[in-house]
């Protein structure tokens, strides 16, 4: 990589600017120089007519000189290029400057085509293309009453809008028999004419202007080929665009017959060191007069210059816009030119709405569409077309009025569906931005750039964001739920400051309604973190998720799994035998967990106490696999056995697991201790990771695996054990006190204002002066730890809950197992149906008896 390559860009329109912006983002070191012919840097040409309705030049600007300076981009305004010397790789300007380039990018854009009509060079005959043009139009309009736009295409109608806003009596003259002949079919064009005429713009289609002569009542008179004429004070040409390709022509680059600099799929011209992008480029005999394909070309060249392999593969020319207040949309094959294509047309003459949908001959795919007067279906239709989605059985529903209230659900879009084609933002990019913490439209827009180009996707973006938020159960307000208008942190504060000990008290003082499955477990966890009461104490029972209520993990069929604590993953042979024997006696499925312990599946509610009695008698404690609490402290074998270990990682892991076992938190907490830098315990993927060094312990914080893995950050190095424990005490307690419900440490830390550095200041430097308090709170929790299963077994009232029926010793007949790989697994619904028909149900007389799988009986 040559890091000091000279990249020279000619032109600073929307596409040229996008190229510069993207290149700088990809390559912070590239030497970028921009030669800009206009007096200001890039501005938004798409919304140019806004200039006459109050949008200032500053508001239209896409960047500022300060921004270019800050990004170390050299630029020269009012700088017209005279010549490109390809041999010496020099660009010469009209001011006599010369610029060397290693790679040259032509983003010269296009100019408005002025048809060769005699009289077209008179003072009030203007074009509509640049801010300068707009100023000239405004000056001329001030001296005029009537204005004519020659050209009834997309830009022509934009120009007509400008004239109308300037208060002129406005006409549009079009050579073709209809308006917007490229994008609309005949029916759409007619509807558009009708609507525009009603808005006070007179439309003249099928008119060839032959001369512009002096007028009788107005300044000029247009003379048409059919003998008619039209008087006007101002003529605005908008009869298409022509690429600015003179520079390329004069230095011998290949150009198209009808203009345009020929480029290949890499946007390279016939000179491999010269690229062309945007409206000056001719790709496969096509010039793309929209901003999205230009942006795409810009990204292709950025990729080429930074070692990437992106290539240009054409572009979707679908468009949605408001012309003179009339909504117009065009998608794909609007003219139904695909062989065999079928068209559905809906017209509402009263509301003046025209909709056409073009589908494949088998009716399964959408090929194109035309929408005039109502584009509410545009986003849905575009996504059917772009993502090649299967159409509904009755595709006409998509454009019929009944269906218009039900736009395509954003949730059903695949992640690779493009939402913003200007900036090539897929739904997956938006979801990723939300994963990383953006949760409102503004931050998502600034993070992904979605909807900052043409703005056509604004509504879709909002629905994607809203749906995604909903599907995550996020209320944008930080309120816990409808019963408490507080965040988890605020509730914890209320509990601790008010000395509140029960849910009922908290609800009556600070909440409303009866609570729910969101706030009850949250408050249960807060109460446990604050006072460490036995979680099955009477007032707390109804707060717990079933897993906490029955101190086991509910599985899909309503049976439970049981996980005894195996601190640090260290276990004696005797204890292994106990687990094995319990599994055998109760016919449980056994599996080794990722946290170095053993999970026993298939226990029925009424079996749990008997199973745990055996385990507790053998010296086991609950593993809290069911709780939002410390799970495991994983360890490698460490210096005791390992040739490489430098500290006793197993001993440390056991000590730490025993210290924090039972600690209730906003989410589960996982830890690990590695005995040397080889990191066999994978500590850097844990909430708290500890890695032994020659001099002590390195502490890593806030990592996690799971759906969005995150490496832990190195928090402090070479700590002695006392300091290590103190820091962990403080971090965990701060997390418990300030995190949101179900927020892992990673997200919690990222959301702290100041992040990791702030956390260091609070924990290590004690900047808030709360370190001692945090340690005391932790000490109180550690000192009041009790094994919940041991307590439960000693509590006859609590044990009463561990039965399937209050009035019968029977078991739940819906829990049925079959054998697979020599162990049990839950029967499928179909298997249950079959067996229930054939075999009488085995009614167990007492709950202590192990369950026999039906399959064994069979």
């Amino acid at each position, binding site marked *: 990589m040559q890091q000091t390559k000279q990249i020279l860009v000619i032109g600073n329109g929307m596409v040229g600017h996008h190229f510069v912006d993207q290149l700088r983002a990809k390559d912070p070191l590239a030497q970028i120089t921009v030669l800009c012919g206009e007096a200001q840097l890039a501005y938004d040409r798409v919304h140019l007519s806004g200039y006459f309705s109050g949008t200032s030049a500053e508001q239209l600007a896409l960047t500022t000189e300060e921004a270019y300076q800050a990004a170390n981009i050299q630029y020269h305004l009012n700088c017209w290029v005279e010549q490109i010397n390809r041999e010496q790789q020099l660009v010469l300007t009209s001011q006599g400057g010369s610029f060397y380039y290693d790679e040259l990018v032509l983003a010269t854009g296009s100019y408005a085509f002025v048809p060769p009509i005699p009289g077209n060079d008179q003072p009030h005959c203007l074009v509509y293309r640049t801010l300068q043009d707009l100023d000239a139009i405004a000056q001329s309009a001030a001296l005029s009453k009537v204005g004519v736009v020659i050209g009834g295409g997309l830009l022509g109608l934009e120009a007509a809008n400008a004239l109308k806003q300037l208060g002129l009596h406005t006409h549009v003259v079009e050579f073709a028999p209809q308006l917007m002949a490229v994008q609309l079919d005949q029916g759409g064009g007619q509807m558009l004419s009708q609507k525009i005429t009603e808005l006070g713009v007179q439309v003249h289609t099928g008119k060839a202007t032959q001369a512009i002569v002096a007028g009788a009542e107005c300044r000029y008179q247009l003379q048409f080929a059919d003998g008619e004429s039209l008087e006007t004070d101002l003529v605005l040409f908008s009869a298409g665009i022509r690429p600015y390709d003179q520079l390329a022509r004069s230095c011998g680059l290949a150009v198209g017959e009808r203009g345009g600099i020929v480029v290949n799929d890499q946007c390279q011209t016939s000179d491999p060191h010269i690229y062309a992008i945007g409206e000056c480029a001719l790709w496969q005999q096509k010039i793309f007069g929209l901003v999205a394909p230009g942006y795409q070309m810009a990204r292709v060249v950025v990729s080429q210059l930074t070692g990437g392999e992106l290539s240009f593969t054409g572009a979707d020319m679908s468009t949605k816009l408001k012309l003179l207040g009339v909504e117009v949309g065009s998608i794909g094959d609007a003219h139904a030119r695909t062989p065999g294509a079928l068209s559905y047309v809906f017209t509402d003459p009263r509301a003046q709405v025209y909709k056409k949908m073009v589908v494949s001959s088998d009716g399964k795919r959408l090929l194109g569409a035309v929408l005039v007067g109502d584009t509410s279906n545009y986003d849905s239709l575009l996504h059917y077309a772009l993502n090649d989605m299967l159409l509904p059985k009755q595709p006409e529903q998509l454009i019929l009025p009944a269906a218009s209230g039900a736009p395509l659900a954003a949730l059903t879009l695949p992640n690779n569906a493009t939402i913003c084609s200007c900036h090539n933002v897929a739904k997956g990019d938006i979801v990723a931005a939300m994963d990383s913490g953006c949760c409102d439209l503004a931050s998502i827009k600034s993070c992904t750039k979605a909807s900052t180009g043409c703005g056509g996707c604004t509504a879709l973006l909002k629905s994607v964001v809203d749906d995604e938020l909903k599907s995550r159960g996020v209320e944008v307000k930080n309120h816990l739920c409808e019963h408490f208008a507080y965040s988890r942190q605020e509730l914890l504060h209320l509990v601790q400051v008010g000395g509140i000990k029960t849910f009922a008290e908290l609800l009556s003082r600070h909440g409303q309604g009866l*609570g729910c499955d969101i706030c009850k477990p949250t408050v249960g966890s807060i109460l446990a973190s604050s006072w460490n009461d036995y979680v099955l104490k009477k007032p707390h029972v109804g707060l717990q998720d079933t897993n906490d209520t029955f101190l086991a993990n509910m599985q899909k069929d309503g049976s439970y799994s049981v996980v005894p604590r195996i601190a640090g993953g260290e276990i004696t042979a005797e204890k292994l035998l106990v687990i094995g024997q319990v599994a055998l006696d109760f016919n449980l499925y056994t599996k080794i967990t990722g946290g170095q312990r053993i999970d026993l599946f298939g226990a029925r509610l009424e079996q749990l106490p008997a199973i745990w009695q055996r385990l507790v008698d053998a010296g086991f404690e609950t593993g809290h696999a069911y709780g939002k609490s410390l799970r495991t402290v994983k360890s490698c074998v460490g210096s005791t056995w390992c040739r490489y270990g430098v500290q006793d990682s197993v001993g440390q892991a056991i000590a730490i697991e025993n210290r924090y076992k039972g600690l209730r938190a906003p989410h589960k907490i996982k830890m690990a201790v590695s005995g040397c830098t080889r990191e066999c315990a994978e500590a850097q993927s844990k909430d708290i990771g500890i890695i032994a060094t020659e001099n002590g312990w390195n502490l890593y914080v806030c990592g996690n695996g799971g759906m969005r893995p995150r490496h832990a950050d190195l928090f402090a190095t070479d700590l002695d054990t006392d300091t290590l424990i103190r820091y962990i005490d403080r971090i965990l307690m701060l997390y418990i006190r300030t995190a949101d419900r179900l927020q892992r440490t990673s997200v919690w830390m990222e959301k702290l204002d100041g992040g990791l550095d702030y956390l260091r200041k609070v924990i290590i430097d004690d900047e808030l002066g709360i370190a001692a308090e945090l340690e005391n709170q932790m000490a109180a929790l550690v000192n009041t730890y009790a094994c919940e299963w041991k307590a439960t077994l000693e509590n006859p009232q609590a044990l009463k809950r561990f039965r399937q029926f209050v009035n019968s010793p029977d078991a739940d007949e819906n829990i049925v197992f079959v054998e697979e790989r020599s162990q049990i697994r839950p029967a499928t619904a179909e298997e249950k149906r079959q067996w229930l028909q054939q075999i009488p149900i085995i009614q167990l007389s007492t709950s202590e008896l192990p369950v026999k799988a039906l399959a064994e009986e069979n």
Partner: protein
Amino acid sequence: MAWTDICAFEDLVENSGICALLNGQQVAVFLLELQGEPQIYAVGNYDPVGGANVLSRGILGSVGEQIVVASPLYKQHFDLTTGQCLEQPEVVIPVYGVKLQQGRLWLNAEQQNQQASAA
């Protein structure tokens, strides 16, 4: 009216549920005792969405004015007075009649909501 004596009032767990066997049907019985008079509700214990007999182990609560239990499996909410699933309107669970007589809980084996019996 087929009423069955189920258990003592004390066997109910306040602000939580237990499960009773009523003519072979599993019935989840909840005792709501947060404000004012204690209320008892009885609905089918079978969660038709999760396909398991678990509703008695769900968390009680309210959604607006509706008193609900949240399934412990996938957290759908069921209205305790109508049996209606809030998230999936086509799903309705049976609702049973409840009475207290001399400290005993009685359940009526006939479902009280017509929709569920039809479904």
